[in-house]
């Protein structure tokens, strides 16, 4: 009986149908949604930590304001996305607890340190570009409340990419030392960027595609990223650290196979900055705990 209902549900979403919070949802679908959306929310929140380190070190007032505005956006994304998770049945306080205890995950790129102002430009430009590709594909998510939130998120993201590209352009047109800072950052960020969209699992084996939570396979997203951004990087005279990177006659990008075990290690808390970031998040959660107790009695 419930199997027939699930089959009917699947058929509906696979034909492009979208469902709402109050609709009947198969248990597996709900579980997968919560896990996926929660990780997205975690990533927005953890993603501001590498950038936060640079607010006080931004080179001009204009850059400081822009970076602060971007960080405000990202925290806002987290807020919106956690609301979607809450309506699916997992309270925000629980999400925050699971994040700092290491029970839930956040995106690989936020497990790395930022070494120079060049990193700030490269993150806002290329990490946000990679993220917006995934987020645009979520506009068609079978779970409508999430898709609606993505509309606002994608709209705000476009400013982030431009702010990043402008920062990079200012540096590559500056002194040789400034150019070198960008080159060094691009070289260091290339591996995490190639990891970003995940292992190239075939579309028909991807449960996220099966339930139409995502509408795009991992490799498809990576190809789109390479297609859009490799030319933009190379035209600035920057180099990418992969001798096998090229577009073949079929129009597909070839590259050195990334180390997927390293990706697994990084997202399970063994990245170069994983523990430091989690420790900081724990600290700030303890620090502001009194605020949520005063402001949101029901959340305490």
């Amino acid at each position, binding site marked *: 009986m419930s199997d027939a209902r699930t089959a009917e549900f699947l058929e509906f979403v696979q034909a492009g149908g979208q469902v709402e919070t*109050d609709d009947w949802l198969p248990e597996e679908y709900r579980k997968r949604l919560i896990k996926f959306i929660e990780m997205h929310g975690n990533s927005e929140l953890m993603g501001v930590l590498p950038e936060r380190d640079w607010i006080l070190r931004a080179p001009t007032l204009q850059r400081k304001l822009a970076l602060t505005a971007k960080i*405000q956006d990202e925290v*806002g994304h987290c*807020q*919106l996305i956690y*609301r979607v998770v809450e309506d699916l049945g997992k309270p*925000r306080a629980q999400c925050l607890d699971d994040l700092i205890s290491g029970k839930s995950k956040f995106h690989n790129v936020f497990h790395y340190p930022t070494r120079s102002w060049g990193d700030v430009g490269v993150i806002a430009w290329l990490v946000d570009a990679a993220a917006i590709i995934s987020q645009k594909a979520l506009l068609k998510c079978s779970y409508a409340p999430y898709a*609606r*939130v993505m509309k*606002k998120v994608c*709209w705000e993201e476009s400013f982030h990419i431009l702010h990043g590209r402008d920062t990079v352009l200012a540096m590559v047109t500056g002194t040789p030392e400034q150019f070198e800072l960008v080159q060094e950052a691009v070289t260091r960020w290339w591996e995490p960027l190639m990891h970003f969209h995940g292992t190239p699992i075939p579309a028909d084996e991807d449960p996220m595609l099966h339930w139409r939570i995502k509408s795009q396979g991992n490799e498809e997203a990576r190809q789109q990223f390479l297609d859009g951004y490799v030319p933009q990087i190379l035209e600035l005279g920057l180099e990418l650290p992969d001798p096998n990177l090229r577009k073949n006659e079929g129009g597909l990008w070839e590259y050195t196979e990334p180390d997927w075990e390293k990706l697994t290690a990084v997202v399970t808390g063994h990245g170069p900055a994983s523990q430091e970031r989690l420790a900081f998040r724990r600290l700030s959660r303890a620090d502001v705990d009194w605020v949520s107790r005063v*402001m*949101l*009695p*029901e*959340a305490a």
Partner: protein
Amino acid sequence: MIYEVFRQERKGQPFVHGGSFHAPDQAFADAYAREFYARRQESVALWVVPREQIVEIDEFPDEFDLKYRRVDGYSIKARLAIARERAGSATSPGTDGG
């Protein structure tokens, strides 16, 4: 408490649901709504409503087949053809009516 936000993008346009947030009271809700939904002037007006105040109705049975209230309840093609025939004003068939 959870508040729902409806935003109007330009004067004269309908208010569209934007999203929701937690706030302890109406004053904070007002401040959060401005920050979350209008800090880039992307809205000209906001409706901020406690979620529990919203009444949702989502079932509309049509037991009595009330098609006569709708455009698809009428098919005038055949009668129009007869009327035109009688009036001697018939043009080539199927160019009009529906």
